[in-house]
């Protein structure tokens, strides 16, 4: 993920590194792009743009380092630059509000008691997908990176350009919001809590 530290590649090496290090991640890249844009054509354009940028800036990539995180970072930045400003996504999250929310414990208690493991296990992909997609983009992103792609907090901090502490608090808040959405789905679908 370092920038400008490696030696420039020779022309034939650029192709080789591109195909060997970058192309194997195209599935994950498309998934990420699709979950950000929620549109197949936009996802395709975003992935293509990211790969072309990656090729142009390939000298900033050190062979053998974390290509997937490096690509995800470019994709995320391209998304912010191109799509976010024209999209109808809610405004950027107020992190002052996030931190104060994070520091209040009452929310966790309520959600945990309102949602059961059995209920989640009975939910189908559509319900979980809808709940995830309804989250604000910043919250959706940390869940995708952590739970779907398995990035570490440190990798996420680099991809998102935020401190690790913020990764953790945003993830915590994102999961609580997701639980709230799942509670709402469960209620609307008529899942019953057997304890009541």
């Amino acid at each position, binding site marked *: 993920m370092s920038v400008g530290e490696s030696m420039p590649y020779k022309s034939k090496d650029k*192709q080789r590194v591109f195909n060997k290090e970058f192309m194997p991640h195209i599935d994950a890249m498309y998934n990420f792009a699709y979950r950000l844009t929620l549109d197949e054509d936009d996802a395709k354009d975003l992935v293509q743009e990211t790969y072309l940028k990656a090729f142009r800036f390939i000298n900033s990539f050190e062979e053998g380092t974390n290509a997937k995180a490096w690509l995800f970072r470019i994709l995320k930045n391209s998304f912010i630059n191109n799509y976010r400003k024209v999209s109808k996504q809610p405004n950027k999250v107020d992190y002052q509000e996030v931190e104060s929310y994070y520091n209040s414990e009452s929310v966790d208690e309520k959600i945990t008691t309102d949602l059961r493991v059995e209920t989640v296990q009975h939910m189908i992909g559509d319900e*979980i997908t809808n709940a995830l997609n309804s989250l604000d983009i910043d919250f959706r992103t940390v869940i995708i990176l952590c739970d779907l792609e398995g990035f570490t907090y440190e990798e996420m901090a680099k991809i998102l350009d935020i401190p690790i502490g913020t990764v953790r608090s945003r993830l*915590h808040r994102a999961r609580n919001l997701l639980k709230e959405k799942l509670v709402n789905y469960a209620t609307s679908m008529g899942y019953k809590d057997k304890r009541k």
Partner: protein
Amino acid sequence: MEVEKKQQCSELLQLVIDGQATQQQRHELDEHLPKCECCRNEFELSLSIKEGLKSRLKKPNLPSELATSIQSKVLELA
């Protein structure tokens, strides 16, 4: 459960669930869970959501021509 303790537990749960906890933190949670139903419930629920996200989320199909299209555009740039 007192507020501060609850918050510490939530943070610990998240670290363990995400595979980011140290051995000592995992041990701390292993010690705590049998004694606290609230944290046990939260742990199991969080695990099941994480598992549901990983295994049941609908995956978009990668457009078949995308990789070829990228590689031919890169050839033009090279």
